[in-house]
């Protein structure tokens, strides 16, 4: 592994790992916040993703960035959370309530963006978060989400079209 911080963290250095967390927390949290309905849930999920990354650091392949590795873990955790979320009727209703509240708000633009994102399926939202909101390449997004490249491109195309329609952005493609 070329990154000395990752090498030291693999050897058990907590100091090296905390520096890795400090360096990559912004990118990972921004990605997870777009996946989750609530920022607090998102931060909790991001923290859990980093802890899982710590225990599975030996699985980080050569050439894969630490950020990509953690985002992949966070995405799988978000998928699992969503499955649990959907199984629980009470929480599902609560979530739908939040969705309606966000959608009805016309005062705060950021709520509109969040609400629009939340209407997308989670895999489309993840692809849009990575490739449109973030600066990830399609290949990196495919690696993070564990999906074929063609599926990523399709998700981005569909997600863009839906977001453009919801936010009133003319589709120029």
């Amino acid at each position, binding site marked *: 592994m070329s990154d000395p911080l990752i090498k030291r963290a693999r050897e058990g250095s907590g100091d090296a790992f*905390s520096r890795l967390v*400090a360096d990559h927390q912004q990118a990972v949290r921004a990605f997870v916040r777009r996946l989750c309905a609530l920022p607090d849930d998102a931060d909790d999920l991001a923290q859990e993703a980093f802890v899982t990354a710590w225990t599975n650091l030996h699985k980080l392949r050569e050439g894969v960035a630490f950020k990509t590795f953690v985002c992949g873990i966070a995405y799988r955790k978000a998928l699992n959370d969503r499955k649990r979320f959907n199984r629980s009727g009470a929480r599902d209703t609560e979530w739908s309530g939040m969705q309606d509240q966000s959608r009805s708000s016309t005062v705060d633009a950021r709520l509109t963006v969040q609400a629009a994102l939340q209407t997308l399926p989670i895999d489309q939202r993840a692809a849009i978060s990575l490739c449109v909101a973030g600066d990830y390449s399609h290949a990196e997004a495919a690696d993070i989400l564990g999906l074929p490249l063609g599926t990523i491109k399709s998700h981005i195309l569909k997600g863009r079209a839906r977001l453009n329609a919801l936010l009133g952005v003319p589709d*120029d493609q």
Partner: protein
Amino acid sequence: MPFWVYPMTNDALKSMLTNDAPAAPPARDIGFVVEVMKRVELRRLYEGLAWLTLIFTTVTALLFITMPVITPALTGLGQAMWPLVIAIGIAGFSLVGFEQTRRVFNQLGWRF
């Protein structure tokens, strides 16, 4: 198109997403790092405790299985070794006594 309608493209979509306030965490957040490291240390502690419990249980189970077999053998070995222990004890006392006597005689000027 009226002048107040800004023609947004997909770059506008990108900027809307990147400027979205709740999705933008701070570049430096020591609280988040501390929280992650707290969870990591807690995980380490639990893993350590799990290993200790596993080792303790394994050793206890092994002793529980092997002690009924080992105890008579140890007792038999101990009884067989009694004459040797007594002989070593007598030899030790004799050597210490001889050494003390030699020192006293040396002080008196009598050399062995």
